[in-house]
């Protein structure tokens, strides 16, 4: 069968070659230039889908973004599946494979359809809410079947083979839509020299000019469009983006443009020039001015069985004939409320097929197009409309009668006309979606029977988008909008140069939405308002009877407008029907507001390149390569990759984490270990008021810290809760180096800045991050001094270089600052060198360290060792509800400092001053083999019934090779006064662990080891 509905000539197709494609497994042919929809119509495919609720057969009704029915599944392989593709917007390509998204066993013979027919009447709006309630236990079963019958296409089950990207653009004038208004606006702005982007969603730019019957400057409209596009393409300051939909309008003129770069070429992006190209691209545009030239959507009429395949939009009929050379049937009945739709009948007749009649709702249709139809001998039935379509799987006839629009009743005998196609038009709705994305309300205009946008600053509308329809007016409106937009961004527009268009006499339209029927709406045939969601006029009527009176309630109760077409065809009709039922006007029922997206956008395009390897930065230290080569397992700490532990191969197998950590811990306690501590935040602080500043942001005292000395500092927020900690070294009287936790680096720097900039600008001090400048390696353990001494000129004598001192000198021939601070409780030196030398210094340490069994250790061992010493990790042992007092760190609280430092005042509030707050303690499990679970809850009475009063929880817990026992840090209510008491930890498996409250310092409580 070869394209029975294809005209011998005409259409904007490349007829030199054919493309083959399949639909529901059947092979068909089409031409380059076809959409999947036009090719299906050319091949006489009537049923493209089954409807969602009633499973009724559905055909193609529109030719663009507003199509509700022809939603298909694309893709020949699993990874290439694309759900819910609108056939009207999918260019045909060789080998395209598409399927209907619903229908079982297939769309032609659908068994669900039988159920839909029988059961349809039991599914009024909101029926879900009224049933499936008994027995309560059955709901999850009911739901399973409800879910199964819902949904359109299916998700791919494999990873997407394609990639996507973003481009950030800035322009003076963004013109959306390249129809007559948009082209004219782009010419005006482009010729002025402004930076212009012209985006259009269709395969080809030109919009309505591509299927127009009009002459511009005596030439067919499409030729003028082609010339305009050629000129625009030649301007350096103009960027043309075809196949690009403006999906979202955001605040301050930020617009997202979704450019489909390869979807017309294949189901996956082909390579270009041997290189990968992106499937689609999202342009993130900041525009000086935005010109909306988005045109208007035709509104279908709502009549009985208006969903049977063969019911189309009048404008779509013209598009298929003129753009694609396809006549979607043989015998046409047109039902219209306006002149413009007559084009469908004229185009149809000129294609050599029969126009049975035009039912025109106006009592006395006049106007040029009407006259042309009359001249062709087409029968016009004035004051009439199609009441009802006949047919099951395809229209077989139409019942037409005179209608009384005022009285909403049928005013005459219905006449049955034989036909296979019914085209309808109830007028036009300006495409105002983008204009309302930032919440601006549209305004109803009775003269054009549509909503027009209320524009926010910086946005202009032109042509159909604001209800201007006559081509000459549209061109002029486009030009003046483009010129104004250019002018407002600082460019002088040239004098308007517009083509001559013969003004056409048109007669006015009448307001017709739902066509009356002999039977009341609730008893008559189904009149569909929202085809995708199977919402009927009756459903809207029932909803209003049940008290759903705002359009928002009606929409939610009936699901009208919630489909992938977002109600582009149905919303206004639905509002009109609700208004009729409630005896109100359309604007009284509500306006309609749209949200992004205008048409759906692939997740991948929104994600762009921010996925997989590039989802989030991985930050590395200067020694990272070494860690990788030495088999480190890594821990994510913020964006950093830090070595977690270094498992070794022992006796032919890899160590477990437990084994590796035990070995690393022993190495530090007994010999010497090394940690890459480069990720700690480092802030260089200079200025005469640096010391004063430190005294205000830290809880402890800084007045007397001498150059060459280091001190631990604790930082709170002004609510008294611990925020971060670290050491700060005095480099010079006015010069300090602050360290922060790895995760806190950026936060702390901003914290210092905000206090300086907003509260204490008079303090003379500057902060600069030097985190990345320095690489830090901690050499720690009893042998640390001996090892370091081999490669440094610094005097490491315990008196010359004391605990909490820092010195500078050469380490491995590299200038270094060495800090004698300890987070392990052992003798420790933190060596800081410029990061570019770090690997050299690190490797030199290993070259000399072999004889001391120098052992690299990771964050896990660091945690064990510090916990043995009772050192906290902010964020692990604190959670934003812990004060320095709760931590028992009274030694770090400068109660008598002259300035009321950040956090101090909050400590005396009634709740923070309580003595039974959760306080940091150590826990010793009664059974030393037990390692308590971190996060285990602590109770005093394990026999208490649920809910059990919880008195605290374990914050850190490890096995200590030094103690050969589990041990933990925890917060316990009043814990500081409960030393020696037993607490209980009831676990998920039913076990209840016992533990003794002890000091949080488990190893070397006097601190002798770090001080050797």
């Amino acid at each position, binding site marked *: 069968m070869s394209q029975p509905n294809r005209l011998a000539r005409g259409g904007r197709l490349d007829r030199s070659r054919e493309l083959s494609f399949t639909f529901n497994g059947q092979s068909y042919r089409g031409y380059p230039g076809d959409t999947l929809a036009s090719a299906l119509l050319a091949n006489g495919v009537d049923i493209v889908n089954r409807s969602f609720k009633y499973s009724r057969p559905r055909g193609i009704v529109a030719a663009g973004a507003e199509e509700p029915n022809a939603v298909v599944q694309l893709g020949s392989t699993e990874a290439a599946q694309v759900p819910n593709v609108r056939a009207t917007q999918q260019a045909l390509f060789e080998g395209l494979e598409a399927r209907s998204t619903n229908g079982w066993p297939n769309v032609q013979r659908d068994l669900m359809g039988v159920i839909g027919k029988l059961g349809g009447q039991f599914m009024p709006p909101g029926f879900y809410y*009224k049933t499936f309630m008994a027995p309560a236990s059955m*709901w999850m079963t009911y739901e399973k079947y409800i879910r199964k019958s819902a949904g359109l296409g299916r*998700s791919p089950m494999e990873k997407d083979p394609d990639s996507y990207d973003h481009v950030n653009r800035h322009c003076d004038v963004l013109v959306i839509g390249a129809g007559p208004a948009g082209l004219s606006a782009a010419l005006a702005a482009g010729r002025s020299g402004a930076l212009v982007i012209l985006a259009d969603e269709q395969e080809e730019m030109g919009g309505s000019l591509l299927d127009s019957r009009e002459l511009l400057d005596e030439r067919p409209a499409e030729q003028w469009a082609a010339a305009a596009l050629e000129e625009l393409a030649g301007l350096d300051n103009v960027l043309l983006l075809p196949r690009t939909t403006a999906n979202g309008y955001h605040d301050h003129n930020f617009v997202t443009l979704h450019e489909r770069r390869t979807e017309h070429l294949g189901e996956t992006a082909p390579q270009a020039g041997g290189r990968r190209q992106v499937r689609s691209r999202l342009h993130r545009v900041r525009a000086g001015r935005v010109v909306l030239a988005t045109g208007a959507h035709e509104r279908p009429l709502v009549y009985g069985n208006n969903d049977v395949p063969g019911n189309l939009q009048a404008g779509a009929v013209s598009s298929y004939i003129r753009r694609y050379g396809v006549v979607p049937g043989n015998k046409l009945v047109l039902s219209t409320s306006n002149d413009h739709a007559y084009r469908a009948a004229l185009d149809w007749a000129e294609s050599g097929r029969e126009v049975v009649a035009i039912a025109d709702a106006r009592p006395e249709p006049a106007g040029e197009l009407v006259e042309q139809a009359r001249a062709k001998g087409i029968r016009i039935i004035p004051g009439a409309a199609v009441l009802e379509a006949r047919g099951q799987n395809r229209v077989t006839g139409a019942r037409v009668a005179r209608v009384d629009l005022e009285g909403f009743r049928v005013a005459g005998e219905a006449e049955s006309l034989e036909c296979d196609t019914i085209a309808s038009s109830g007028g036009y709705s300006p495409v105002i979606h983008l204009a309302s994305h930032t919440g601006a309300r549209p305004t109803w205009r009775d003269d054009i029977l549509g909503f027009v946008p209320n524009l926010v600053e910086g946005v202009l509308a032109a042509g159909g988008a604001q209800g201007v329809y006559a081509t000459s007016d549209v061109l002029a409106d486009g030009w003046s909008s483009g010129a104004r937009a250019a002018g407002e961004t600082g460019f002088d527009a040239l004098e308007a140069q517009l083509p001559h268009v013969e003004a056409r006499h048109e007669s006015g339209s009448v307001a017709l939405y739902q066509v009356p029927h002999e039977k009341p709406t609730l008893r008559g045939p189904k009149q569909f308002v929202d085809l995708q969601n199977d919402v009927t006029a009756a459903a809207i009527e029932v909803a209003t009877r049940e008290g759903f009176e705002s359009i928002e309630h009606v929409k939610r109760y009936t699901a009208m407008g919630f489909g992938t077409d977002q109600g582009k065809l149905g919303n206004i009709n639905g509002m009109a029907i609700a208004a009729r039922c409630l005896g109100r006007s359309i604007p009284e029922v509500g306006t309609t507001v749209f949200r992004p997206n205008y048409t759906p956008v692939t997740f991948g395009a929104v994600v762009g390149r921010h*996925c997989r390897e590039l989802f989030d930065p991985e930050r590395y230290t200067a020694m990272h390569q070494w860690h990788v080569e030495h088999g480190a397992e890594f821990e994510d700490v913020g964006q950093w990759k830090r070595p977690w532990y270094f498992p070794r191969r022992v006796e032919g197998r890899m160590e477990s984490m437990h084994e590796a950590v035990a070995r690393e811990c022993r190495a530090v306690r007994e010999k010497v270990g090394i940690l890459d501590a480069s990720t700690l935040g480092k802030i260089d602080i200079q200025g005469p008021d640096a010391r004063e500043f430190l005294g205000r942001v830290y809880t402890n005292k800084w007045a007397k810290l001498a150059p060459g000395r280091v001190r631990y500092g604790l930082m709170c927020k002004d609510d008294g809760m611990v925020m971060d900690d670290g050491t700060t070294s005095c480099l010079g009287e006015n010069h300090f180096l602050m360290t922060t936790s790895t995760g806190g680096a950026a936060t702390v720097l901003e914290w210092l800045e905000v206090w300086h900039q907003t509260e204490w600008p008079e303090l003379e001090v500057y902060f600069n991050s030097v985190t990345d400048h320095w690489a830090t390696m901690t050499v720690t353990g009893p042998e640390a001094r001996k090892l370091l001494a081999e490669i440094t000129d610094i005097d490491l004598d315990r008196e010359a270089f004391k605990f909490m001192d820092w010195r500078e000198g050469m380490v491995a021939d590299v200038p270094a600052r060495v800090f004698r601070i300890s987070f392990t409780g052992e003798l420790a030196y933190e060596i800081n060198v410029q990061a570019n030398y770090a690997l050299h210094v690190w490797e030199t340490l290993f070259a000399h360290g072999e004889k001391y069994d120098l052992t690299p250790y990771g964050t896990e061992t660091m945690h064990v060792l510090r916990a043995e010493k009772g050192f906290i990790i902010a964020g692990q042992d604190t959670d934003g509800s812990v004060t320095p007092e709760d931590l028992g760190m009274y030694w770090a609280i400068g109660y008598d400092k002259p300035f009321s430092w950040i956090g101090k005042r909050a400590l005396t509030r009634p709740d923070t001053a309580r003595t039974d707050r959760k306080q940091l303690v150590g826990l010793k499990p009664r059974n030393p083999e037990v390692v308590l679970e*971190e996060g285990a809850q602590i109770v005093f009475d394990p026999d208490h019934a649920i809910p059990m009063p919880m008195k605290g*929880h374990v914050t850190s817990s490890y096995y200590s090779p030094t103690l050969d026992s589990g041990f933990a840090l925890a917060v316990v209510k009043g814990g500081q006064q409960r030393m020696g008491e037993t607490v209980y930890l009831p676990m998920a498996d039913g076990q209840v662990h016992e533990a003794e409250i002890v000091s949080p310092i488990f190893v070397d409580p006097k601190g002798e080891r770090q001080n050797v």
Partner: protein
Amino acid sequence: MQRYSGFGLVKHALSHHENWQRQWRNPTPKKAYDVIIVGGGGHGLGTAYYLAKEFGIRNVAVIEKGWLGGGNTARNTTIVRSNYLWDEAAALYEHSMKRWEGLSQDLNYNVMFSQRGVLNLGHTLQDMRDIQRRVNANRLNGIDGEVLDAKGVQELVPIMDCSKNARYPVMGASWQPRAGVARHDAVAWGYARGADALGVDILQQTEVTGFKIRDGQVYGVHTNRGDIEAKTVGCVAAGNSGVLAKMAGLKLPLESHPLQALVSEPLKPVLDTVVMSNHVHGYISQSDKGDLVIGAGIDGYTGYGQRGSYPTVEHTLQAIVEMFPIFSRVRMNRQWGGIVDTCPDACPLISKTKVKGLYFNCGWGTGGFKATPGSAHVFAASLAKGEMHPLAAPFSIDRFNTGALIDEHGAAGVAH
């Protein structure tokens, strides 16, 4: 009240659905009521319903400036769970969860509460510590939940990328089987229908423009439809609470932020549970209609515009595709925003005020929907007795002066 049932549906079908009753009346405001509820969302309507049903106070008006259920009730992503960390919050949300479990039958309105379970993923060691802490606390508070490892997560959600190749590999999760989703609009409509049947006046399109206060006691409200009196006024106005408070001369510890969400096009069933990740920062479930319902965190600025900034949407979808690479070709249908009133400790305010008789129930931030029945019930109890219900008492406004905050940022994490 017309009772709904499958049998009734058949009966109505035979009469062409011409005999359905209104689900609620459209009454003229009376001069005075015993209690006025300001705000006709789920919490407000629920409060009125429980006042009438459980506390015998039926002379109640619910004043709604728009349409009932049109605010955050209509805009949230419908997740219901009770696995909060701190005792006070857990007790309140579990109180709510228990009511969710019989709500459809109680209201004779199917709110489609689907107990399909919620996963809160952990991607770092600290995530897992927090998860263990929370699940342990939940268990001892009598709330269901368990800690899963990555393998357990993969078994529940086979389509998720639980491999080690992910930027932040899934290490495990907390799993609350009783948690799930519900049909948000139906909650408002069900409570409205139930309250209306018990005599509550639901006054839509009625805007409170001020409070009538004398000697520190509230005795009514000014509205665009005239003054209405009552000696007990409960404000349940979510994002607009601050604006109302200002009318009464009060200041609240609240900021109203945009919270965005989005849905995909409808798909055949592919995801059977709710998946949330604080760290990768996004959450997702699939509605009964087939849409993937997706959200993440709030926008950082104050905003009453019911929209946020685009990068938030980008980050959210990046998180979803990171967790579910197979969704890369699925398409985003629509995004929208709500206004969430957030407290500094991510817990609500259910409180008396300095004005006698004037109560506020707000500050639910991103967690309001799941709390609807519980919040409504304890608030109704508090209004009825003039004393805060024990479950509501810890959420008093005083905590911001004493310092007794209940910091749920960890458990609240991404918005939901």
